[in-house]
């Protein structure tokens, strides 16, 4: 369970504060997959980053009873000038896992081959996603925070990812931010709609999708 207590986030603009999240008090379940829907710029990614504690809210706090991943998506979090292996070493160290095992696992999962020894800036976005996915699977989080399901990669890797995802579903859950209605429908059992700084919970996914289309 992730509990948001009075979470408020705004950005200062030339014409005053622009509120992205307004005093949100909500429990986000972590015993099932959860989707977050909202229009472009509604603040979905910001909300995900606040849940992940990658960004601090201006007011309020976030508590979590489960081990959350870093906010995944866009292949961020890697140092471009360093190799895949060195990045994996760093992430292993900050999460306290064995980096040798991590490198072996990610090497096998991502099939990046010799690219593992090359700087990450030489990677395509698909390759970065493979690296990030592999590493996050190895750390074994209880809840994965995902910004748009990675649709990247060749068909071979897509199958690999789907298999890993199935395995993942048995031991962990997702919080998924997406524009893609079909991936929300396929994956999530509860949906939160983010609109004008407020978060509304819907346990009926179809109802949420219908309201989302009307936004």
């Amino acid at each position, binding site marked *: 369970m992730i509990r948001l207590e009075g979470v408020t986030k705004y950005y200062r603009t030339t014409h005053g504060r622009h509120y992205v999240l307004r005093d949100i008090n909500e429990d986000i379940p972590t015993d099932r997959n959860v989707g977050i829907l909202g229009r472009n710029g509604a603040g979905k990614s910001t909300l995900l980053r606040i849940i992940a504690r*990658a*960004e601090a809210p*201006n007011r309020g706090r976030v508590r979590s009873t489960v081990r959350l991943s870093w906010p995944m998506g866009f292949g961020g*979090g890697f140092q471009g000038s360093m190799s895949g292996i060195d990045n994996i070493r*760093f992430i292993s160290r*900050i999460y306290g896992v064995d980096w040798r095992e991590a490198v072996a696992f990610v090497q096998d999962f991502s099939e990046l081959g010799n690219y593992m020894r090359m700087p990450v800036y030489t990677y395509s976005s698909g390759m970065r996603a493979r690296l990030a996915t592999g590493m996050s699977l190895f750390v074994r989080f209880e809840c994965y925070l995902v910004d748009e399901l990675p649709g990247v990669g060749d068909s071979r890797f897509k199958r690999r990812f789907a298999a890993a995802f199935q395995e993942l579903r048995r031991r962990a859950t997702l919080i998924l931010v997406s524009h893609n209605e079909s991936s929300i429908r396929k994956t999530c059992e509860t949906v939160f709609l983010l609109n004008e700084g407020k978060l509304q919970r819907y346990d009926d996914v179809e109802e949420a999708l219908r309201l989302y289309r009307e936004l």
Partner: protein
Amino acid sequence: MSLARDFRDFGRSFTVQRRVLYALILREMQARFGRSNIGPLWALVEPLLLVGVFTLGYLALGRRSPPQGMEFLPFLATGIIIYLSLRNIAGRMTSAVESNRGLLLYPQVTPFDLMAARLLLEGATFITVFVVIVGGGVLLGFASPPADPLMLLLTLFVVVLLGAGVGTLQAALTMNFPWVDHFMRPFWRLMLWTSGVFFTLKQLPMSAQDILVWNPVLHVIELMRAAYFAQVEPYRVSYGYVAWWVLGSAFLGLLFERMFRDRRKEK
């Protein structure tokens, strides 16, 4: 027991903090020195080159030796290495967040960690460079050993502390007011000529002394020389004054960081 839980939570946070700093320092080392074994030697090049050039300069000017019977190498090395290291520590702490922004994605990594990792690495580099250059000079017969090695060592740590304070302040100012960055280069250039790198306070006329005596970098350089040379007594400089600078600049830096946190453009 809530107290027991507090202790456990603290223990856990401490473990995470240690892990993060360790990971960051290893990563910074690799970025700064590269993977080759001779990489760290590069840290010696700049100070060695400057010490060499200024020694030649002194000789060319016909100045036979620094004041009060100080030897060339320890006199110039204390000044130049302390000056360069303070500039480096402050500069690298200032750019720490900008060059590692991507890592803030991980919840356990904070801007404070990024700065602390660079401080620890630059501080250790400074002490090593100092010991290698001065120690090497002693072994090769260019200088006699320090009169008070323990005080010298203590002063090396005081320099790192001063770097920590000044670095925190410079980083906080630069983060909140980007225009400050344009003034840092001329500021440190000015410091090179006002910190007693090439002279001692005592040599100056009283009116100049009264101004420069406010400069904490001059204090640590003179204190270092007083620790090195038996015949040199601290003149108008003190550890107490440096301590006020360490505390004051760290306090102001952290205060600015806190005050303007909301206002900054977010990552």
